[in-house]
C-alpha cells in the first residue's frame, strides 16, 4: 500500500470510531447551529410551530385541549391531509399539481353516481371510482413525461377539464348519502379510541401516511423520487428511469386524491359537486408549511401531516379564541411566508 492509502485508511478508521451524528462545533453561533439542526431535520420547524400553537390556543381557551376537540381537528384536516400526501410526492419531484381538488371531487361524484344512477354495488362503485381517479392522475403523468409539458401548465389544464366534466356528469346535483350504499359513507363513521373519536377516514389517512413515510425512506422508489426532484439530469445519468418515477408519482397521487374523495363523502354524508375549488391551494399550503421545498428533493410526508394539522389547529383555535374570521386567513398566509423563508435560510447551510 502506498503512503497516501495508508494515511487514508488510518484517517478512515479514526473517523469510523468517532462517528458523531451532527458536527457540533461549539464556537458556532446559535443561529448557525440552529440552521444545521433544521437542515438535518426539516420537520423540527413545523413541529415546533404546531406544539407552540397548541399550547397557546389551550391557554386562551382550555376547551381547545380536550379529547373531543382534538378529535374534531383531526377529522377536519383528514381530507386535505390525504390530498396533500399526493401533492407531497409530486412536489418532491419538483412538480406541482393544481388538479388536486378536481380529481378528488370528480372521483367522489363518479363513485356516488356509479352506486346510485348506475345501480352498482357499493364495492364495485368504490373500486371504479378509485380507478377513475388513478386514471386522471395518469393523464397528468402522461402529459408531463411524454409530452414534456411543465406540471403547472398540465395540471392547470386538467383542473379545468376535470371540473367541467364533473359539472356535466353530476348535472350540478348533490348525491345524498342516504341514497348511497353504506360503504360510500363508511369513512365518516367514528370509533372511540382511548378518549378520542376517530373516523375511519382519519385512520385510513394515517395508515397512508405511515406507508408512504416508509416507502420514501426505505425503498429504492423513494430514493429515486428524491433524486429525480433534486437534480433530474443527474438522476437520469445515474441510470434512474426518471420518466417512470414521474409517471408513478402522478398516478399514485391520483389514487390518493380519489381516496380523499371517498373520505369526503363520509364527512359530508353526500357527494357534492360544489366543494373542492380551493383544495389545490389548501394542499399546497399544507405541504409548504410542513417544510417540503417547492424546488424538489427536500422534505417529506411527516412534515405535510404536521402542516395540515397546523392549518386545522389555527382555524379551530382562532375560532375558540373568539378571533374574527378574517384573521384566520391572514394567519395562515403569514405562516406560509415564514415557512418558505425558513426553507430558503436552511438551504444556505454550508459545512
Amino acid at each position, binding site marked *: 500500500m502506498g503512503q497516501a492509502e495508508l494515511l487514508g485508511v488510518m484517517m478512515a478508521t479514526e473517523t469510523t470510531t468517532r462517528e458523531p451524528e451532527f458536527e457540533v462545533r461549539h464556537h458556532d453561533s446559535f443561529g448557525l447551529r440552529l440552521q444545521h439542526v433544521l437542515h438535518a431535520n426539516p420537520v423540527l420547524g413545523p413541529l415546533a410551530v404546531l406544539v407552540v400553537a397548541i399550547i397557546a390556543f389551550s391557554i386562551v381557551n382550555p376547551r381547545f385541549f380536550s379529547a373531543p376537540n382534538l378529535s374534531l381537528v383531526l377529522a377536519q384536516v383528514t381530507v386535505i391531509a390525504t390530498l396533500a400526501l399526493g401533492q407531497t410526492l409530486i412536489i418532491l419531484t419538483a412538480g406541482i399539481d393544481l388538479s388536486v381538488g378536481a380529481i378528488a371531487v370528480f372521483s367522489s361524484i363518479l363513485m356516488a353516481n356509479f352506486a346510485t344512477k348506475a345501480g352498482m354495488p357499493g364495492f364495485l362503485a368504490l373500486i371504479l371510482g378509485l380507478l377513475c381517479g388513478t386514471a386522471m392522475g395518469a393523464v397528468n403523468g402522461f402529459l408531463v413525461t411524454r409530452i414534456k409539458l411543465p406540471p403547472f401548465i398540465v395540471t392547470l389544464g386538467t383542473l379545468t377539464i376535470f371540473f367541467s366534466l364533473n*359539472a356535466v356528469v353530476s348535472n350540478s346535483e*348533490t348525491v345524498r348519502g342516504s341514497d348511497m350504499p353504506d360503504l360510500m359513507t363508511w369513512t365518516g363513521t367514528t370509533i372511540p379510541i382511548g378518549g378520542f373519536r376517530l373516523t375511519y377516514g382519519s385512520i385510513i389517512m394515517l395508515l397512508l401516511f405511515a406507508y408512504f413515510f416508509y416507502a420514501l425512506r426505505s425503498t429504492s422508489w423513494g430514493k429515486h423520487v428524491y433524486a429525480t426532484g433534486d437534480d433530474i439530469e443527474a438522476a437520469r445519468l445515474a441510470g434512474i428511469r426518471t420518466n417512470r418515477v414521474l409517471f408513478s408519482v402522478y398516478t399514485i397521487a391520483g389514487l390518493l386524491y380519489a381516496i380523499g374523495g371517498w373520505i369526503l363523502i363520509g364527512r359530508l354524508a353526500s357527494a357534492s359537486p360544489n366543494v373542492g375549488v380551493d383544495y389545490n391551494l389548501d394542499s399546497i399550503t399544507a405541504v409548504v408549511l410542513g417544510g417540503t421545498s417547492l424546488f424538489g428533493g427536500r422534505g417529506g410526508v411527516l412534515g405535510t401531516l404536521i402542516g395540515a394539522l397546523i392549518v386545522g389547529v389555527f382555524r379551530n383555535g382562532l375560532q*375558540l379564541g373568539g378571533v374574527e*374570521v378574517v384573521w384566520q386567513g391572514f394567519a395562515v398566509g403569514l405562516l406560509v411566508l415564514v415557512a418558505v423563508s425558513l426553507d430558503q435560510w436552511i438551504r444556505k447551510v454550508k459545512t
Partner: protein
Amino acid sequence: MRDLAVSRRGRLIAAGCVAVLAFGTAGCGGGDSGSGGGGGGTVVGLITKTDTNPFFVKMKQGAQAAAKQQGVDLQTFAGKQDGDNESQVQAIENLISAGAKGFLITPSDSKAIVPSIDKAKQQGMLVIALDTPTDPPNAVDATFATDNYEAGKLIGQWAKAKFDKEGKTAKIAFLDLNANQVSVDVKRDQGFMDGFGIQFGDPNKIGDENDPRIAGHDVTNGNEDGGRTAMENLLQKDPSINLVYTINEPAAAGAYQALKSAGKDKAVTIVSIDGGCPGVDNVKNGVIGATSMQFPLKMASLGIEALAKFAKDGSKPQATAGKDFMDTGTTLITDTPQTGVDAKDSTWGKQNCWG
C-alpha cells in the same frame, strides 16, 4: 426503454391541443348560443356567474323559455367560476358586436363590470342586473333581484316566533359566506338579525354586534364542507347553540352533519335561504326548519320580458315601490309554520323550487 424524446413540433401541437381543450371546455358557456327562439332577429343576452350552480342553471332555463315565448334570440354566456370578471367582459363585447338590444347579467364583480356595462349602454342597449346589484346600483337600467335582506328577515321572524312559543332563549350561530362580506352575505345576515330582534351595528358589516345571544360567526364558502367545519368549531366554542343561521342550503346541509355527529340534530334548529329543490327536500325531512325561497326563474323571465318590451317600444322597466330594484319576491318555506309569519309548506316548495 425507447428514447422518449418527441419531436419539437409534436410537442407544440400537443400543447396546443391541451390548451384548446382546457379553454374550450371551460369557456363552454362563453360564446355558446343558447336555444334561441325562431327570433325575428332581435338578439338579447344572458350572462351568469357560472353555468354549474343550479341557481344559474334554472335562471338560464327560465330565460330560454321566456325568449322562445317572446320570440327573441337569446345568447347565453357564463364565467368559469364565481368572481370570473374577464369572461363576463368578453361576453358583453360579444353581445355588442352581435348587435344585441340588451342583456341580463349576474355580475361576478359588481364594481369591475361597470365600465363594460357603460360601453353597452352607450350603444343604446338595455342592461338589467339579476340577483346581484352592481356597484353603484344605478350603473344598470334596472335590477331584478331577491330582497336578500327580506329573505333573512323572514327566517329571523320565523325563528323568533318559534323560540318565543317554545319559551326558549336562543343561542345563535351564524354561518356566513366568506371573509369578503359581499352584499348578499351581509344583507341576509343583518336581515336575519332584524327579523329576530337583535340590535345590529353597521348594517353593512357582519360581526360588529355583541348581543349575548350570538354564539359566534364563521365562514363556509357556501358549501357543505365549509358548513360542517364552521358548525363544528362554533359548537366547540359554545355547546349551548340551539339556532343556526346559514347563508345557503349547502352550508346548512354541512352544518346538519356536524350537529348529527354531535348528537344535537334534534335539539338545534337550522334556518337557511335559497329555495333550491335539495334544500326544500331538507325542509321536508326536518334537516332545515325554514328556508326563504328565491325565484331565479322569475328573475330571468321578467328580465327577458323587459328586454323584449324595450326592443319593441323603448320603454324601460320600473323598480318596485320604495326600493331601488325590482323585487322578484321571497317566500318562506316551512312545515312548522309560526303565527304572524306567512309561509308555504314543502309541497308547494317542491313545485316551485329550482335546481
